[in-house]
């Protein structure tokens, strides 16, 4: 009773020791060198290429072309968010409130899209509703194919985040409202919604963020008429060499994403649910009657349609040639038949990808784990700000990160521009926030009393960390590691900007096929995408095996 409120208000003696603080220098140095310093260089590039000037901003904000791009980026992100919520919320409700056969499996399937590389998803939708797609519906170069792909990606975020909190809403509060005379709609509006609102807002801001900085999907599916700010920055950098405009545009994008990150950090914290590490079925029950059965069946079909259709279509198309099924697309991946200059074999690209993914994991996991533990102990007002700052690379967009690294790390002593190390740095920046999020959720959920109990049994603060925090967080760290691996494996934007031909990863190799003419090139791209999909699927299986139920946001 009094104990509860006391431990919440407690200032506590069990804060970080000096060793813990010294450890924090590691991520701070990394972020300083590879995130803050490049950002600073972007600032310099945009303001002061020759003397201080706001001209690049003027050029962008005074140009209908750029304004059009910004406007498009905004409204497609809003539309993607609304579409994802519309599909995700009913599923979140069903997962939170009902028990049904194969629930664990179906819920696990909803995670598949999130670990899928953008390039795989893009080609999945090409295979499904492209010019030569399985469905008799050609959405090539329409906005719908982009919105659908964004929904595919982010459906997971909404379902996971919202259903976790929704499962925690006591159904008795709803029953009490019913008995007090509220109709079903009023119950939802006045009782349920206020309780799950933080989760909805957190999920929505994340979906907005991902759609706002979308790159691969738009680059491949958008055709000439649709381009997000992210794609425009890429074009300005890699194709038009207008670095000052790219820098100014990056800053404008960064301002938006930081605002959204702050918003996200605020609601994410409020939607955190206390951990009790036990299977909890409170509030979930078996469906009764035909109506509820149908509801669950239709949810299953939606999951199937959203999650599996593009992926199955991808595999099917990768095997189909001009006359029936064939392995030709796959066998062509190893041999350079056309005698092309930049040819990368599948095995070569795979080797590069696995190497980068492994290295990324080794960097991102310690980085993210240290940050997560530091954030979990942070108190007071700085807490939300620190959270948003450490998560900033998540919102900074792959292209901005890569662009910053490109212009910052090109002179001694940090002349890494030509080294494969830049790719690992960029991938680690993109991946570590996911490690932070999966570890933080668990560490924050550890009851402060567990640490105090260990202390009273004679454990020093180092041993409390070693025997309590670390074992409890270990599965979350493993999940974070798998995320880091999968993200590096599928990362496209930064890789495209930073990679050299000899270090081509699978996604970059796939994209290179598109630049060449011929139907067999698309076939090769589809085949390689299918291989990447299978590898990513393995990552997903590991994540599902080790995550605590309902914990973690992704």
């Amino acid at each position, binding site marked *: 009773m*009094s104990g509860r409120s006391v431990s919440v208000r407690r200032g506590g003696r069990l804060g970080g020791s000096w060793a813990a603080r010294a450890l924090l220098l590691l991520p701070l140095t990394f972020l300083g060198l590879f995130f803050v310093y490049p950002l600073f260089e972007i600032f310099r590039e945009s303001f002061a290429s020759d003397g201080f000037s706001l001209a690049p901003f003027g050029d962008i904000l005074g140009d209908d072309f750029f304004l059009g791009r910004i406007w498009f980026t905004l409204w497609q992100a809003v539309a993607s968010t609304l579409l994802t919520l519309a599909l995700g919320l009913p599923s979140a409700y069903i997962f939170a409130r009902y028990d049904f056969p194969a629930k664990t499996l179906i819920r696990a399937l909803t995670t598949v899209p999130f670990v899928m590389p953008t390039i795989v998803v893009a080609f999945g939708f090409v295979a499904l509703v492209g010019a030569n797609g399985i469905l008799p519906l050609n959405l090539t170069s329409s906005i719908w194919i982009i919105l659908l792909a964004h929904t595919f990606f982010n459906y997971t975020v909404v379902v996971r985040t919202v259903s976790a909190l929704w499962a925690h809403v006591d159904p008795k509060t709803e029953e009490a409202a019913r008995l007090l005379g509220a109709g079903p709609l009023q119950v939802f509006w006045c009782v349920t919604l206020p309780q799950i609102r933080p989760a909805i807002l957190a999920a929505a801001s994340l979906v907005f963020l991902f759609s706002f900085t979308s790159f691969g999907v738009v680059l491949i599916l958008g055709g000439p008429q649709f381009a997000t700010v992210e794609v425009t920055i890429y074009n300005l950098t890699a194709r038009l060499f207008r670095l000052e405009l790219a820098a100014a545009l990056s800053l404008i994008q960064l301002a938006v994403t930081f605002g959204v990150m702050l918003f996200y950090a605020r609601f994410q914290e409020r939607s955190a649910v206390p951990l009790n590490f036990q299977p909890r079925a409170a509030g979930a029950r078996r469906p009764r009657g035909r109506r509820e059965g149908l509801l669950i069946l239709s949810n299953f079909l939606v999951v199937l349609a959203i999650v599996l259709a593009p992926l199955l279509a991808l595999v099917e198309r990768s095997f189909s040639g001009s006359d029936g099924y064939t392995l030709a697309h796959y066998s062509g991946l190893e041999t350079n038949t056309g005698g092309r200059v930049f040819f990368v074999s599948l095995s070569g690209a795979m080797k590069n990808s696995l190497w980068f993914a492994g290295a990324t994991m080794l960097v991102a996991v310690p980085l993210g784990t240290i940050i997560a533990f530091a954030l979990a102990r942070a108190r007071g007002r700085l807490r939300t700000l620190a959270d948003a700052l450490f998560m900033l690379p998540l919102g900074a967009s792959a292209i901005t990160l890569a662009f910053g690294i490109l212009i910052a790390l090109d002179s001694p002593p940090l002349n890494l521009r030509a080294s494969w190390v830049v790719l690992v740095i960029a991938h680690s920046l993109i991946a570590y926030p996911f490690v932070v999020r999966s570890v933080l959720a668990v560490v924050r959920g550890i009851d402060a009393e567990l640490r105090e109990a260990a202390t009273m*049994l004679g454990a020093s603060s180092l*041993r409390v960390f070693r025997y309590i925090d670390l074992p409890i967080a270990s599965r979350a760290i493993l999940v974070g590691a798998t995320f880091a691996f999968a993200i590096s494996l599928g990362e496209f934007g930064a890789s495209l900007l930073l990679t050299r031909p000899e270090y081509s990863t699978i996604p970059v190799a796939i994209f290179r096929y598109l630049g060449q003419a011929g139907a067999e090139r698309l076939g090769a791209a589809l085949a390689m995408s299918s291989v990447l999909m299978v590898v990513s699927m393995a990552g997903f299986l590991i994540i599902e095996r080790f995550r605590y139920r309902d914990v973690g946001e992704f």
Partner: protein
Amino acid sequence: MALLTAEGLRLRYDDELVLRDVSFEVEAGEVLALLGPSGCGKTSILRVVAGLEPAEAGVVRLDGNDLAAVPSHRRGFGLMFQEFALFPHLRVEQNIDFGLRMQGLGGDERRERVADLLTIVGLTGYESRQVHQLSGGERQRVALARSLAPRPRLLMLDEPMGALDRGLRDTLLLELRRILTELGQTSIYVTHDQDEAFSLADRVLIMERGEIRQSGTPEAIFRQPVDAFVARFIGLGNLIEAQIEDREGATVARTTIGDFALLPHVDAPRGRATLLIGDERAQLERVDGGVDRHVTNSFLAQVRQRSFRGRRLTFRVQAGEATFLFEADTRPQHQAIREGDNVLVTVDPEALRVLA
């Protein structure tokens, strides 16, 4: 010399003073109960003694040595949390073993001690259970075993029955008493429940708003509560303002409902005070007509509530502004009384106490 002494403990959360110069002692081998309503600062005392919370002022001594510089994990105290705080990632035996492992004891010694403790708390065979498979009562036993395992100099229990339901409490309370007594374990037991405190403790400290109001054996406190707060808190609620005077060689408490003659050995200061009328041994008699209202040790009242409790009856009666609760036996005279009846209540002078 006392095992533990606390002098002038003061603690503040935000701007609120939760401990105001609290001092007390714990003798080796005794069970001391800290009793008080929630939010009175009981748990804060435990946290300060444990070293989990730095006090603003005050000293905690063990065997006369100041503990200020000794961190929590070196104090050698045990603390059993209200919600037990069992480690969810460890099995039952690993939970109990944790403190032994921290002491760096050898494997055989630890295994033996864990087995002993499981026997003591009656959970032999539960070694490899997962914590979340346990019932509330089993969790409590594991938590007790875990905090006893490293043989703490002082065991502190924070509302250990708080998370359990009523029926379970009574059984576990008896068992807890048996274990603590058999081991001669020096303990501080925090609770808001006077039954728990009185049935378990050798000595009780009653707290309110960060201050100790009274300390003593359960019998002494029950016999002579120091003030109206303590009396009410331990369930003695029949209180009325009184003027204590000497009249014709006897001491009399004059109240708005009548006069009460105190027994010669009752030590009461003259002047304004609070009179406590024990709820036992009162006689109630239905009255219909007029009665001589000046009979000493009795007063007229109206029955507001009557409840039948098997072997006894309780009556809530109102006299003037004041209400009183009396327990009465089930003799026919009492059974005949109904709600709304006017009664003459006669109290036994043995049941009268004067509070400051």
